[in-house]
């Protein structure tokens, strides 16, 4: 006769707390989904604000993600491998946009790139205008989302055993080759998680975009801004937009998580 191990009440409480949190996270989306009849979905998708906003959101977040990954990966590698005080200070600085409210970020960006900003006039002199353009949308997204990527990437790089890199070097790999052929592939799952976090944050970015890039359909009105505008016109429209944005976000997140799994099934990359 098997004897069932005694379950402490702490486990039960843990399950209760966890389930509550999961419920809190999932329930709003379920509510969103059930509240929308199919006809509303079709009407919303046909609304003139819808396609431009969706397209703008996808375009800008793709651009900002690329910039984040290209600029952030070497930075994360340096943060992970360097023991200098500069590196530690930089790590704290990188986290700034996370702890500052997005609206404040928006004002700060205006103070930097605006007509009376720190570098705005210099850029204007060479013909570059940033505020109220698609570029401003990208800048705002990069600022608020890249810290998530850099932190996750640095943590992923830290987990690569130093011995593996030493071996790679003794086998003839330059520091760059050791990074690219050993550290990067091993850290890739962590980098992908960081990228998906950054992408999600950029997709949902609102406050800084509103203040710095403005609200102009087709040019700077991303999906979150469109949702806010739609609220003023028709609540059901806003709900449909929200549902679509949530669905897009879920699809992107799942896709990014799937990539490492796919690589396994495709077999090895050639060296």
């Amino acid at each position, binding site marked *: 006769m098997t004897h069932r191990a005694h379950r402490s009440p702490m486990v039960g409480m843990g399950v209760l707390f966890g389930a509550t949190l999961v419920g809190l996270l999932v329930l709003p989306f379920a509510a969103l989904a059930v509240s929308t009849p199919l006809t509303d979905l079709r009407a919303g998708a046909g609304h003139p604000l819808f396609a431009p906003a969706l397209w703008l959101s996808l375009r800008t977040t793709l651009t900002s993600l690329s910039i984040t990954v290209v600029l952030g990966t070497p930075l994360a590698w340096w943060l992970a491998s360097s023991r200098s005080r500069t590196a530690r200070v930089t790590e704290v600085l990188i986290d700034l946009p996370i702890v500052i409210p997005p609206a404040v970020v928006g004002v700060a960006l205006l103070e930097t790139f605006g007509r009376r900003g720190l570098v705005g006039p210099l850029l204007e002199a060479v013909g570059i205008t940033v505020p109220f353009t698609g570029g401003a949308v990208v800048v705002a997204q990069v600022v608020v989302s890249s810290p998530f990527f850099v932190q996750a990437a640095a943590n992923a790089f830290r987990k690569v*055993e*130093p*011995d*593996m890199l*030493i*071996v*790679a*070097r*003794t*086998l*003839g*790999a*330059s520091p760059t*080759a050791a990074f690219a*052929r*050993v550290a990067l*592939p*091993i850290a*890739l799952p962590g980098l992908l998680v960081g990228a998906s976090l950054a992408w999600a944050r950029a997709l949902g970015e609102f406050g800084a975009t509103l203040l710095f890039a403005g609200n102009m359909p087709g040019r700077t009105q991303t999906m979150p801004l469109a949702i806010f505008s739609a609220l003023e016109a028709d609540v059901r429209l806003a709900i449909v937009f929200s549902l679509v944005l949530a669905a897009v976000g879920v699809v992107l997140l799942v896709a990014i998580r799937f990539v490492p799994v796919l690589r396994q099934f495709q077999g*090895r990359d*050639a*060296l």
Partner: protein
Amino acid sequence: MTTWHVSVATRVGGFELDLAMDGDTTPVALIGPNGSGKTTALRAIAGAIDVENAHIHVGDRELEHTEAGIHVPMEHRRIGYVPQGYGLFPHLTVQENVEFGLAYGPYHHSSTDRRAHASKLLSELGCASLSARRIDRLSGGEKQRVALARALVLDPDLLLMDEPLAALDATRRRAVRRFLADRLEAFGRPSILVTHDVRDVIALEATVVALDSGRVIQRGSLDELRRSPANDFIAEFVGAA
């Protein structure tokens, strides 16, 4: 008969390393209590850490000579390194791990050459059947052999191994020890192995260099150390035969 010399004096973190040792093709067993600087010494020889003052040469190649301003970067030292835990690349197969050294920079070979060379080495080490296997599917003994093959693929002038048998269970250790002794004899080049097990020393017929707090406190054959061990650790080490 190739001779080599290593002297390193440097601070690493709060730890001070100040040692000098030399040898020939006879394997050298580096022993000492935990924290005595054995792994640090290996890393310094490989060139993985910045050293304040060092003189390292293998045969007629100067790898490092601080006073003369010579510092050969890691990828050109022609040193084989097998760290603790073997450090096999988890994202590559056994074959790709062994071919790694022939894929980059100074030792680049065409992919057919690489495959031939690596396969030959794997066969010699009895691992031919493992070539497509992923690293996490290998047993401890298999990992050891693959790590050795990987280190040997470049025909290094010096082989460094950090506790090569520590991760194996007692039964396997005996077999792999014998295998390692045979391979090193066939290798015929200088080698330095960190070990905690006197049976390794016996099997390899190695000269012993004993470290303590970053310094060499005794050097000699096992018999010499048995006769007059310089401290308790060494006495215990040789007595465990």
